Structures are given as C-alpha cells and as structure tokens.
C-alpha cells in the first residue's frame, strides 16, 4: 500500500501536473453556488413552541428540507436518491421529521432542529402499491407512539421513538389497498378503510396494540370505485364511482358500512366527469367538475349539498383548526396581476377571516399549491401565513399582504442550458462608472502589496477579501474584454427560462413560456430544448441575440410543438408560434441567413423534415445544400440506427414548401438478442479544433480524424442492462461503436467482455472517453479511443508541402473509403460517475480537462494527459519532455483537483462548458438540484495576469529601478569627472 501511495506521489511529482486547487481566500472569487430544493409537494409547519419557526417540506426532486419561515433559508436539507421519491412527510413527537419514501418501503426519522438522521427502517414490501403515512396524534401504546404506514401490501406500525416495527399486517393475499387510516379519539381501535379490487369497500378494525383484526366488514359496490377519495370526517369518506359521475358516501360507523349515492348531476347541471380534489376539509369536499371547483358539504346523514363554487384555477389548502373548534382553509386565485388569498371558515363560507391581494410577477404563472399556518397576533386574533407554490415551481411565503420571501425553486430542475453574450458597452448608455478614483486604486494596491509581503494585519486581510469579492465590476451587465461575463440561459422543467449572470449567479431575467394560441389543449407548453437562434456578429451593436425554445404541448412525443423566440438581452418573447406538427428532433444547420438567423430542421413523427425560419431566403440557402443534408435516428427499443437523406418536398394538401421528405440511406441493425443500445453521443457542433495534426516524440506526424459526423454508440447485452452486479461477467458484454452518420460505416468497434453499463461518455476532437463497470475486476473503468487519419499520413514531407503536392486542401468526402486507425487504452477509475464533460476554449489551443461529475456530487477536473492512449510504462526522455505520463493501471484522484472544492452540487445532472474570449479560460456550469459555476484555466492563465497581480509592486520596482539608474548615472558622472580632473 505504501508503495502504491509513494508511486502515486512519484507520478504526481514527476509529471509536474499543475494543481488547480484554490487557496482558502480564493473561494467565491469566480465561482458561485446556489442551493435549491425543487418543487414542494408537502409542507408541514412547525411553529408552536419553537424558537425558530420553520417549515418542513418534501419536494419532487426527492429533497426533504427544513426552511426558516422568516427568511426562507435552508436550515438543513437531505437529497434522497433519484429512485427514492418521498411519499409522505410529517412530524412525530414534536421533535422528529418522519419521511416515507420508495413507495412506502423506507421510513426515516430526522431530528427536527439539525436534520441528523435518528433512525431508518426498511419496511417489507411485496408489491408496488400506493403508500400512505399516518402519524396519529394521540395514539399511545405502552409508552410508545406508533406510526402507521401502508405500502407494498403491508400495514406496519412503527415506533416513533426508535423505528422498531411494532406489528405488521399482511394484506398482500387479498390485494387490499388501504385508502385511509382513521383513528377515533380516545380509542385504541383504528379503522382501516380500503378497497378490494376497487369494487369492494372493506373496513378493518385493528387493535393498535397488537395489530390483530378485531372486526372486519366488507360490502360490494356494484359500480366499482375510481381511485380518488376524500375523507370528510372520522367516520365518513366520499369517493367517486368508476364512471366519475356519482359521488358515493361511505359511512362506517361502529363497523357497519353503508353506501349513499349522489349523482353529480343532482348537484350541478350538465356535469361532465368529476374529479375529487386533494384538500382535506372537514365535513366538506372539493370536487372539480365542468372546469369549476365546487364545495360540497356532507350532512349528518350523508346528504350532500353544494355550498360554493369557484373557478378551477383556484388552489386550496387543507383545513386547519383555528380557535374555538373552528376549521379554516385558504384559497388562492389570480385576478389580473394580483393574487387573491382568502382564508374562510369551513363551516361558514361567508365568514372570511382573511382577504389579501398581493401583486405578483406574471412570469410566475398561477398558484399551484397553498399551505397555511396560523399564529396568534398580539391582539389575540388569528393571523395566517400562507406558503404558496407557483406554476413555475417557485415557493413564496405570504404574510400580512406581502411576499415575505421567495425561492426560485424552478432552477432545481434545469433541463437544458445554453450561453449568451451580454450587450456591448455603448458610449452613450455606458453603465460603467469609474468605480475607483486613483487614490482608491492606489490604496487598494498598497493593501494587496502588504498582503503579498505578509505585512497585513487581520483587518487588512478582511478588507482585501472584501475588495476582491466586489472587484472589477464582475457583475456588470455588459460584455467584457476577456469574455468572463456571460449569461447562462437555463430552461427548467416548468417551462421557464432563466438568464443567470456568470459573475454572481443572479437572475438577470426570467420568463415563463406561453402558448401563442392559449388553446385549451395547450395552455402551458413544456420546454424541451434550447437553441441559439440568432447570434449577431455584424450588427452586434444594434441587434439583440435570441434563443429558440422548442416546446411541446403535453408529454407525448406526438404532441404538437411550439416554437418560441426569446430576446436574450431583455428576456422578452419576440414571437412564438404553434407549428402544427410534432417535434422529434431539432437539427441546427451550419448555415445562417443574412440576418444571421441560424437555419434549423425539425423532424416530426411522420418522418417529415421542416425548415425554419420559414423565409424564402432560408429556403434558397437550404436548396443549395439540399443534396448534402443527412440525418439519423436512433431507435433504442428496436436496436436500429437509420441514416436518412433528403428526398423531395412534401406532397399533400397540408404541406408547404418548407416541408421535405426523406429517404432511408443506411441502417445499422443491432441483434436484439445480444445487444441493446444504452448510450449514443456526438461531438458538440460548435467545438473548435485548433490543430489537425499531432506531433509524436519521434518527430512523426499523426493526423487527427476530425469529423463532425461521428456517432458514438454503446450497447450491452440485454441481460446486462440492469443494475451493476445483476449479472455474471460471462453474461454481459459491452460493445462500443464509432459510426459515420453519412454513410453508416462502422469505423471502429470494440467489445469489452464482462463489462456493464451505465456508460458515460464524452466526445471531443478525435477522441472519446467512456466510463463503465468491469465486472471481472469489480472496478469502474475508463477507456479512451483516439482516431487518426491515415489517408493524409504521407503529407509529412516538407518538400511536398512546399511544392504543393499534398492533399491537405482537398475536400473530404464521407464516401471515400476511410483509412484510419485507432489507439485505445483502459484505466481503472475508483469512482462511479454521474456525468462527464470536457472543457472547451475559444480556439482550442489550451489543453483539455475532463470534468467528471462523481457520485458524491462533486466535479473532478482530470487532465486529458492522464487518459492518453500513448502512455507507456517507461516513457523515454523525449516522451517525458512531451508530457507523457508513465502508465499506471488507475487514474489518480487528486483531492485538490475537485473544482467544486468543499461544495456539493446535489443531484448533479449535467455539466456545461463554454469558452471565454480569453483562450486559456473556460466557463463551467453544473446543474442538478443545486447550481454551481466556476471559471477554469486548464493550463493556468498563461495569457493574462491574475487578479492578484500586484501592480503596485511592479510600479514600485520600476520607480526604484529608474531611481537607481538615475543615481548610478549621477554617481558615475561625478566619478568620471573627478577621474578626469585627476
């Protein structure tokens, strides 16, 4: 072990790899980190008898968090795994947060003040079913407080104190689905109501001490139930029948079941299908019918009557007990640009306890969820605070008619990111003020000088730090010389666009996508992808760049698409259109029209290709290149990759001249019994390759095979498509391909026996690096494949180049037979990986780093030289000089090269890199539940001085030198004179 460590050290030292670590005081200078939780699903307030008022939330990003009610900050937060969705959250014993997750199979308790896990219990589950968490308030069994959990066909009673399973009841045999667990006060009997095959209502009376069934009653309902249920009181529930037109009140008082049917048409005229809304209101239920929300009161004998109706865009909270045995609930809806928040008593809907109207940004959409909490004001009256979740997933706390705080939780679900430039600084409208006078400037530099000479006092150090944080207008809204200031445009799952400033991560603008027609089917399209639509270079001063957002009305891939064009500087939607066809794939073409709008092709489900923008100029540009446009589709389920070429214009009455048909040119068919596609990848279309050749140590020249039309495909044996370790090494094989997408030629094919996915890959220039699991070695591996062109290998002779007898300038056709060879090498890698990216710089000169998003949600920067296929065990002197590192069997993980230093990008999903104008520097943006940004210089900032550079020291040195020169000159003059007089 010691030898290995020392060898690693040796490798590290001998290769003299520059470490990219930061000093402590450099954290936050050019990186920022934002913590989010995601769209809130459940919220539980904890305000009584608590010094710090907080709200416990669980979200759709599988986060359980405790938020400060005063400021909205996160007290603590836990991100559960991607497959560990939270089903319920509650507070038990006043000190534990209980979460039920993974379809009712995992129950955890977290300490309320600090979020430490207190206990975790894995519950037995036999089948997947809906799950239910119930924390009875006043149920006590022998000094223990049971929590009742239904999930996977079992009902468990779990001790709240230590998580021990007190008893469990097996319902798997009957197929019984528990809908409600009700516990009458002051009774040790709990009522468990559920449905059997959704047509028979069953009530079990279970002794809460032992779990034994005391009594069981069942009754068949001939019509059958639909799933939704609303419990209105301790002995009554209301369900919808399977036709969704009859409300059935089920009473089960004293173990007797009775049904009472009320057709909805009795309550409302011309009713369509009804839907029971989720809020729990006492003696009342909310039903959505005919696009209205009606409130139905349940009378003592199960009689139903409509008491109120509201528009269906109203969000409602659960009922909340307020003083004097009264129960209140909150409702919120939009009125113009304002939100109307009302809190009413359930028993008496005319009594409005609170009515507030709050100005709301229209880019937040309508209210999605409301949670309310009450407090006692100083004048003994009830005050209410409401936590609302908006359509864009943002979370706001409303209190006393104002927004106390808001959190942009939409940013926890970023789906696509692109970059945009900031406006050019114009003379007239300059935002740039002279921030420092000369004196300030000098003072600052004197401070820095002191710091660098280790003379600074602690106050000075603090001042330096503060100055650095605010320095050099890094959050200005104009373009800078080095290209350090940029906008990251992020599209979220809610269909909202955010522009984030690279300087400090603030939101410059945000915009919720709107459907142009506002039709009923498509009110709010969901965004799929972002493309750079227009990037003006010629008219950069007076034209704004814009991005194209491709959206879809609905989750189905055949749903009609929506295009939206958004101005990057202002965040305003320039135009948007329903395109009338579906969107399967969007292909940006390498052509722009005279206004520098990029041509895009959109493929629909019928195999037609549509050209955008729909202008005659774009059409003429496209017609010129018509013959040379190819595309491909990957049919992952069938294991087929098809290549297509353009054929002709669409025929048919609905077609316009911008629609084209395609013909199939090639297919690659993977045998379904032995291979399954798990990953495909192409190069980034805008990547810049600086040099086509690579000089090896023996003065030999290797030409990179740089083609934009290469597709990397990874397949595994169908058996091995599951989790790691689910198969034996003999059963699983991983095969990787490099396929030319014009001709369908397989350029490279390599099979790894005994290996398994998931495959994470990165493709850049002429190399692919991919990460997978080796079952034989029980380790993760990283393999690099580099492709070199042999057809130009004879262009090495200088005289040929001088005399022009080379084929370097000849156009390259994909139809030529490729003469290429590959070099590859595999290395062990100690960590599993979530995503891999590669740095990209403006000219592609700077050496590259792999950015590996590890399983610990951190980002590791690994020099590309470590994954060089030319590494050998004992590199010669010349090879060492070239920078070839001696071969090792595993890639080093150097703790200092984590670019996220001590931070975690929770739930990391993707890493985006974008070049700055300065060649040495690249922007890195990582997104997941959290956002993280930093600037990287893979080969250090060789082309600029660092921010820490002490100009004062330089100035002083120059002055001192000049003075010294002058003094010595005077002295020498004098001496010479005196010599001459001698």
């Amino acid at each position, binding site marked *: 072990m010691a030898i*290995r460590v020392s060898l690693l050290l040796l490798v590290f030292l001998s290769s003299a790899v520059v470490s990219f670590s930061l000093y402590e005081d450099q954290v936050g200078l050019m990186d920022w980190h934002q913590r989010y939780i995601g769209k809130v699903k459940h919220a539980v307030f904890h305000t009584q008898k608590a010094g710090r008022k907080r709200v416990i939330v669980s979200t759709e990003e599988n986060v359980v968090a405790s938020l400060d009610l005063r400021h909205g900050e996160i007290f603590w937060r836990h991100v559960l795994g991607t497959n560990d969705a939270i089903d319920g959250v509650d507070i038990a014993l006043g000190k534990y947060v209980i979460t039920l997750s993974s379809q009712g199979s995992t129950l955890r308790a977290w300490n309320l003040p600090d979020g430490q896990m207190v206990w975790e219990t894995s519950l037995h589950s036999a089948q997947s079913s809906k799950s239910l968490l119930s924390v009875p308030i006043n149920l006590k069994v022998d000094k223990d407080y049971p929590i009742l959990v239904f999930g996977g066909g079992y009902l468990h009673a779990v001790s709240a104190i230590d998580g021990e399973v007190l008893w469990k009841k097996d319902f798997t045999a009957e197929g019984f689905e528990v809908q409600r667990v009700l516990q009458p006060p002051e009774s040790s009997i709990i009522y468990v109501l559920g449905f059997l095959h959704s047509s028979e209502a069953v009530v079990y009376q279970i002794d809460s001490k032992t779990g034994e069934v005391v009594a069981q009653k069942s009754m068949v309902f001939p019509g059958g139930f639909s799933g939704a249920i609303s419990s209105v009181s301790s002995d009554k529930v209301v369900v919808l029948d399977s036709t969704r037109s009859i409300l059935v009140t089920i009473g089960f008082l004293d173990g007797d079941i009775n049904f009472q049917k009320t057709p909805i048409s009795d309550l409302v005229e011309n009713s369509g299908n009804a839907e029971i809304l989720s809020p729990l209101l006492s003696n009342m239920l909310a039903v959505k019918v005919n696009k209205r929300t009606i409130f139905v009161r349940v009378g003592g004998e199960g009689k139903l009557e409509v008491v109120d109706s509201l528009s269906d865009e109203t969000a409602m909270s659960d009922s909340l007990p307020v003083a004097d045995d009264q129960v209140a609930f909150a409702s919120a809806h939009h009125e113009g640009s304002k939100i109307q928040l009302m809190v009413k008593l359930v028993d008496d809907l005319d009594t409005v306890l609170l009515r507030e109207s709050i100005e709301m940004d229209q880019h937040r959409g309508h209210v999605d969820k409301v949670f309310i909490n009450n407090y006692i004001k100083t004048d003994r009256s009830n005050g209410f605070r409401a936590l609302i979740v908006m359509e864009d997933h943002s979370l706001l706390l409303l209190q006393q008619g104002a927004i106390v705080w808001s959190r942009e939780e939409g940013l926890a679900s970023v789906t696509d990111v692109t970059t945009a430039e900031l406006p050019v600084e114009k003379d007239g409208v300059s935002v740039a003020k002279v921030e420092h006078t000369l004196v300030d400037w000098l003072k600052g530099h004197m401070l820095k000088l002191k710091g660098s000479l280790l003379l600074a006092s602690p106050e000075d150090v603090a001042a330096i730090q503060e100055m650095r944080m605010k320095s050099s207008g890094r959050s200005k809204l104009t373009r800078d010389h080095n290209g350090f200031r940029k906008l990251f445009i992020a599209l979220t799952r809610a269909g909202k666009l955010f522009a984030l400033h690279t300087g400090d991560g603030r939101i410059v603008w945000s915009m919720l996508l709107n459907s142009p027609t506002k039709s009923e089917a498509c009110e709010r399209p969901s965004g799929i992808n972002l493309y750079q639509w227009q990037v003006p270079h010629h008219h950069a001063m007076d034209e704004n760049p814009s991005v194209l957002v491709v959206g879809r009305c609905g989750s189905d891939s055949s749903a009609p698409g929506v295009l939206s064009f958004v101005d990057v500087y202002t965040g305003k939607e320039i135009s948007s259109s329903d395109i009338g066809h579906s969107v399967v794939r969007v292909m940006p073409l390498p052509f722009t029209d005279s206004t520098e709008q990029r041509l895009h092709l959109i493929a629909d489900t019928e195999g037609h290709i549509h050209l955008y923008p729909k202008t005659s100029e774009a059409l003429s540009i496209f017609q010129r290149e018509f013959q040379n446009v190819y595309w491909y589709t990957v049919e992952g389920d069938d294991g087929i990759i098809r290549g297509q070429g353009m054929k002709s214009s669409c025929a048919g009455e609905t077609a316009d001249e911008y629609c084209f048909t395609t013909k199939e040119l090639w297919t690659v*068919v993977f045998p379904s019994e032995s291979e399954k596609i798990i990953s495909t990848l192409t190069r980034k279309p805008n990547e810049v390759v600086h040099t086509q050749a690579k000089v090896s140590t023996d003065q030999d020249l290797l030409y990179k095979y740089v083609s934009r039309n290469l597709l990397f495909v990874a397949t595994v044996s169908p058996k091995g498509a599951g989790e790691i370790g689910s198969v034996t090494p003999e059963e699983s094989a991983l095969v990787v391909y490099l396929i030319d997408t014009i001709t369908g030629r397989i350029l490279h094919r390599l099979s790894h026996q005994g290996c398994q996915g998931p495959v994470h890959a990165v493709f850049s220039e002429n190399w692919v690096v991919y990460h997978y699991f080796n079952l034989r070695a029980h380790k993760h591996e990283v393999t690099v494949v580099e492709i070199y062109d042999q057809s130009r290998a004879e262009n090495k002779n200088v005289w040929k180049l001088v005399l022009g007898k080379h084929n370097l300038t000849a156009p390259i056709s994909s139809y*030529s037979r490729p003469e290429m060879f590959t070099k590859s*090498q*595999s290395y062990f890698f100690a960590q599993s990986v979530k995503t891999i990216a590669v740095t990209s710089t403006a000219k592609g000169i700077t050496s590259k780093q792999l950015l590996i998003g590890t399983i610990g949600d951190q980002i590791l920067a690994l020099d590309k030289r470590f994954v060089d296929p030319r590494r050998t065990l004992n590199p010669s*002197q010349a090879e060492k000089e070239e920078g070839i590192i001696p071969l090792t*069997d595993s890639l080093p993980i150097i703790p200092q090269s984590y670019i996220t230093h001590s931070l975690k990008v929770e739930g990391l999903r993707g890493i985006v890199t974008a070049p700055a104008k300065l060649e040495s520097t690249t922007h890195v943006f990582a997104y997941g539940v959290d956002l993280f940004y930093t600037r990287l210089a893979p080969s250090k900032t060789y082309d600029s001085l660092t921010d820490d550079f002490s100009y004062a020291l330089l100035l002083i040195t120059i002055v001192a030198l000049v003075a010294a020169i002058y003094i010595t000159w005077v002295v020498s003059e004098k001496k010479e004179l005196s010599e001459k007089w001698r």
Partner: protein
Amino acid sequence: MYLGRTVKVFGSRESELLVDDDEFGLEGAKPQSTQQQTPTTRKRYSDPDSDSKVQFTLEHGFGDSHFSPAGTFSARLKSWSHGGKTLTKLRFSRNGFSDEEKDTFKNLLTGDDFYRIRVPSSVISPPGKEFVVASVRAASLSLPFLRCLPRDGLDEHFVIHMEGANILAASYGSLGACQYPRQFKLPAKWSFNSHTILKCSEQAPRTPIFTEEILGGENADGEVEPPPERSFWAKYWMYLIPLGLVVMNAVTQATNMAEEQTGGQAGGSQVQQSARRR
C-alpha cells in the same frame, strides 16, 4: 482481375475473401439464376463439425426504386461448441446489369442519386426481419480519376460487420478516395469488381494491472535510473560560448592595445591635456 487473386487477412478474426473469376459474374454472366427467387435460401449439411453453408441475397435499388436481387453471398456458418456461431469463407457472386438496369444506372449517375444495397440482418433466420441497408452516391462508384480507380469498370467494396450470425452493418463504396465535387462519367465496362471483407468485433485489451511485485522490483533501488551521460559540449555549451566570446574579445583588445602603444601615443596625451585645461 487486378487485386482479385490476392487474399488479405486483416487481423485474426477478419478475413478478406476474394471471389474467383468464374464466380464474379463478369461481363453480364448470370450465374445461378434460380437462387435469386428467394431472398434467403439456406442449405444445411449435417456435418459432424456442424459447419453449414448459408446463402443470402444482396439486393439493390436505384434511387427510390424497389429492391431487386443483385447477387448472392455464400458462406460457411461455423457453430462453436460454446454456442456461438461465426461466418467464414464469404464468397460473393454478382449478377451483371441488364440493359434496363444499365439505363436506370445511367439516370442515377446523371442525377447523382443514391445506389442502395441491402442484405438481411440475420443470415440464418428467415427473411422478414430488418434489412441492413447501405447506399452510395452512384457517381462515386464509377470514378475514373487519379488514385481512385485506374480501371474503367465499376468498382465496389463491401465491408460486412458481423456479430455471430447477424449482420450489423454493411459499408459499401468504391475502393479509393471519392472526390468532391463528384465527377460525372459513365463507366466504360459494365462489370463489377467486387471485394468483400468480413469484420468481427475486436476485443478490448485488458486493462494493465500492475502487481505490487513489479512495482517493488522496479522501485527496489529507490532511484530513478540516471539519465544517459551527455557529452561535455552538450552539458556546458552555454558557458563555453560566452567564454569563447570573452577570450576572443580579449585577444582582439590585446592586439589593439599593442597597436595603440606603437602608433597612438601622441594623440592620447593630447586628449588628456585638453581635458585638464577645462
């Protein structure tokens, strides 16, 4: 046939198979026309080593037209004891173009449209499954220029990627480079020179595992081996050159001094005197 009789072997598991002249179907000869009726015919011989002969049809299409049979591949299917199957000894016999096909092909050339071929994706299972399609711009098939083709026939080159008894992909094209913009020239001879290569997947090299013994042996001395001794000049040239310059300078100065001593005595004292007078 040029190139025709050489058999190249690429690696251990690839073999290029060249077809004998008589099976080539040159000059419009149409061999075994009966076998073209069924897209895939299979003959099994109950050999003890479980080798069997398979045949499958190559079909071609001009532009967007339907596919029609164009030739037959025949190969031996070897079944291994561990259950795997491999295809060996692939032979191909091409049917010549009929006059009608020649006309269509000429149209294809003028339009620079695609000439498409397809083979069944599985050589043993009955047809009806997916076909592996490949296509090429017709003009690049009959390229009579430079290195591409010194001959004036139609030159075709198949690379068939196999996985067991399945065909993954077929690459199709001419042998040499294909120039762009594509030139239009009709072939002088309507005969195909066919070359086929069968490719199986390469095994990835095992990741090197360095045992600690090797490392221990290497690092036993605890020292990196000293770099080879360089010559005296290579080591100290940066000192030698300035030294040489200094020496040369000194030498020239010495000679100059000697000259001054002999000739310039008077002038020197004059200057001194004038300086004192100031």
